[in-house]
């Protein structure tokens, strides 16, 4: 592999990284909002969220990204590939994140809300000062775990023509006629990236355990 191949590979890695980063930055708070809405037990909204999470868990990203990219223009929303990819990853990861957040909300001790009420805290203040800082710590390992799943599923966006870290190997091979070196190099980059997240998750897990002790 020459200099051009290496810079192509890095460009592909950058595409994967920024698209995943946006999906994570939006998907984590969106998951929290969905979990809170579901736990608020609003009649119809709750059922819709259950349906959304169930569909989100079952739909392959390849299918979803094709659906969003090709069907959106029919409804008057022409999307460029990158927007379609980001929306797809957000919709997918938010469904999984909602489940992680919900487990933390459900496991949260009731006594704390009673104590906060007795001390005269309003609900939003209680959520911001008491609940969120704690469920953040207990949810974080699970959320980071979902991030690794998101990165592992992200090559699906290659199907709508985005040259990410996976698809760039085809581009390089088309020039060099040597597919194996770029594929191995891309695989190594993925493994370095994902192992960093796995180590982070382990460390956060220990912190969360200390909190619940």
């Amino acid at each position, binding site marked *: 592999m020459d200099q051009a191949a290496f810079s192509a590979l890095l460009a592909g890695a950058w595409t994967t990284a920024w698209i995943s980063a946006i999906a994570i930055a939006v998907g984590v708070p969106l998951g929290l909002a969905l979990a809170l809405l579901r736990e608020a037990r609003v009649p119809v909204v709750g059922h819709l969220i259950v349906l959304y999470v169930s569909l989100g868990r079952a739909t392959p990203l390849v299918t979803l990204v094709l659906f969003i990219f090709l069907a959106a223009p029919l409804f008057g929303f022409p999307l460029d590939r990158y927007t379609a990819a980001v929306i797809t990853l957000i919709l997918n990861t938010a469904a999984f994140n909602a489940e992680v957040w919900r487990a933390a909300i459900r496991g949260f001790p009731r006594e704390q809300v009673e104590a906060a009420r007795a001390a005269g805290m309003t609900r939003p203040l209680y959520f911001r000062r008491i609940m969120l800082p704690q469920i953040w710590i207990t949810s974080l390992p699970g959320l980071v775990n979902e991030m690794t799943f998101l990165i592992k599923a992200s090559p699906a966006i290659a199907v709508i023509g985005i040259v990410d870290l996976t698809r760039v190997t085809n581009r390089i091979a088309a020039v060099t006629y040597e597919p*194996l070196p770029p594929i191995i190099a891309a695989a190594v980059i993925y493994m370095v990236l994902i192992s960093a997240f796995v180590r982070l998750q382990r460390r956060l897990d220990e912190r969360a355990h200390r909190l619940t002790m």
Partner: protein
Amino acid sequence: MSRWDILWDHRATIIRGFENTLILFSVSSVAAFLLSSAIVLVIQTHRGALSGFFRTIVDGMRMLPFLMYAYILYYGLPSLGIRLDAWTAGFIALITYHAAYFAEILRGTWATLPKGQTEAARAVGFGNLAMYRRVILPQLMLRTAPVLGNQLIVCLKDTAFLMIITVRELTAAASAVQSTYFIPFEAFVVAIALYWLTSMAIEVLVARIGLVAERRGLGYGHVDSRR
């Protein structure tokens, strides 16, 4: 003619794609489970190089995106003179990739089983293989059912990646029909519905296994209470 009518006329293509997806999923998940059971037995009962080798493979595989792995088998191996057709590459990729995930799930749960069991089994004369098959593995299957169920759904979804290496599965079929008649909404809604139904069928099956586990006192809650 409405768009749905067009799709209905081409239902044979979609059905063939769905059948292919079901074949890929069911054959691969059963084979992956059998392979993972063997790998876990080696990891847990052998000391030395072979056990370390499998642990490294299992850990490494879980850091690789599935499509990247399929690329290695389908586009990479021909450089070494090994040429696989798309279906063979797809099957090998699904089976070995998910075997690594299943193996990690089973290994993690085996570590939580009480040590006395193995000692008791050995005391009454069970060898490694017989003990594994009759005592350990049935418990592992029952205890890990919910987690294995999630992994089965991941396996189902991973079959869709194989359209990128030209396997004619459900998403490829929907994509072929939509590109000829330009009915992307209808084609992919049907595909997504079929994936959804399949995953619900998997969940029903897993819940059944969970009930058996509960009846035998091996339920999920039971595992937690012992930690």
